[in-house]
């Protein structure tokens, strides 16, 4: 009888300590047909997570725009001045404090790397003087380093710059 009690207690404890929560689990974010949540009936592409923020590209309102989802408050965050009517955005990335968003924007047939500052709502073209096709930008979570692909050497290479657009002291010549 005593042994049976112990087994019951142990089983109850193990259930309490994590029997019912699968360790890697898929999180359920609400699906909203109106396009006010993470997922919508339209495409959601190239998500990127840093801290509480998930940044992604969606064509839910007829244009390929950047959206920012706050995972703690579970709602979209407004990004004034980021998305333009004449530009298509791709491959966004965000810093951990949610301040800097970097993405590849195509405007007038030219693709460039843009940096968006959420505190000032300012958009800045980082590759205005680079005569090459650029794609797939990424930003470090501290927001200080940005890397992207460039076709300047006739093949895809990686360039690393800081937030002001200056190249880092790293040998990037193909060898």
């Amino acid at each position, binding site marked *: 009888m005593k042994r049976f009690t112990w087994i019951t207690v142990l089983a109850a404890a193990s259930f309490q300590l*994590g029997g019912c*929560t*699968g*360790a*890697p*689990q*898929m*999180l359920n*974010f609400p699906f909203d047909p109106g396009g006010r949540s*993470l*997922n919508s*009936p*339209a*495409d*959601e*592409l*190239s*998500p*990127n*997570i*840093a*801290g*509480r923020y*998930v940044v*992604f590209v969606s064509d839910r309102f007829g244009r390929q725009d950047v959206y920012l989802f706050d*995972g*703690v408050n579970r709602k979209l965050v407004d990004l004034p001045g980021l998305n333009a009517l004449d530009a298509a955005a791709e491959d966004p990335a965000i810093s*951990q404090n949610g301040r800097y968003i970097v993405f590849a924007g195509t405007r007038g047939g030219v693709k460039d790397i843009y940096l968006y500052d959420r505190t000032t709502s300012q958009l800045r073209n980082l590759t205005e003087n680079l005569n090459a096709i650029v794609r*797939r930008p*990424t*930003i*470090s*979570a*501290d927001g*200080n*380093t*940005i*890397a*992207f*692909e460039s076709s300047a*050497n006739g*093949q*895809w*290479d*990686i360039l*690393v710059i800081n937030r002001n657009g200056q190249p*880092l002291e*790293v*040998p*990037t*010549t*193909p*060898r």
Partner: protein
Amino acid sequence: MAAFFPPYVHRCALITGGAKNDRYGEFTIMGHSPKFQPLPPVSPSPRLLWWVVLALALGGCMPAVVPGGQRSLNSRYTDEQPALSADGRFLALISNRNGRREIFTYDLQQKQLVDLSGLNRFGTMPESPSLSYTARYIVYLTTSQARPALVMYDRILGQGQILYQPYEGSIRHPRVSPDGRYIVFETSMRGQWDVAVIDRGPNIELDVPDGLPLEEPITP
């Protein structure tokens, strides 16, 4: 005079040959030098010194680098899909430089490639790497048994494991959060590309440097 002093002072005086020996002035006892003089400093044997230097150079502080690895970030082959660690020190990339598609991690401070033993196995083609805070976790996409698989490589353990492999549909473009707990990716489960988030749970070892405040988890 001799009646005042203990015998050893007498002996000292006898050995050093008098009270006025001020070669080691601070060691005199009541005007006399003691018997045991401090030795003059001796330099170590140069041969021994060279052995020590050689031993240190051969194995002391050798960083983990790919043997014969090159110093440049880029090669003459395709280098693409960059991903930065949160502190901006490491950069993961996909490169064709060894004749097949592999993941490399470049240390932007040391300006050299990092050893990733056990990651690039023969016959797998990795895609879309991403890094956690100090590049401990490398999450990437590969194909296993004709199905796309989400793999997390632990640089401390030196091995990877499949985190998620759907039976139906496809996945694309995984990204790990800086602390290594969450992974976002595109899934085609609903018949179009949607965003899915995997939570590795609260019991994992987060890749967070000491002193950094923990983020609020997005798990409800």
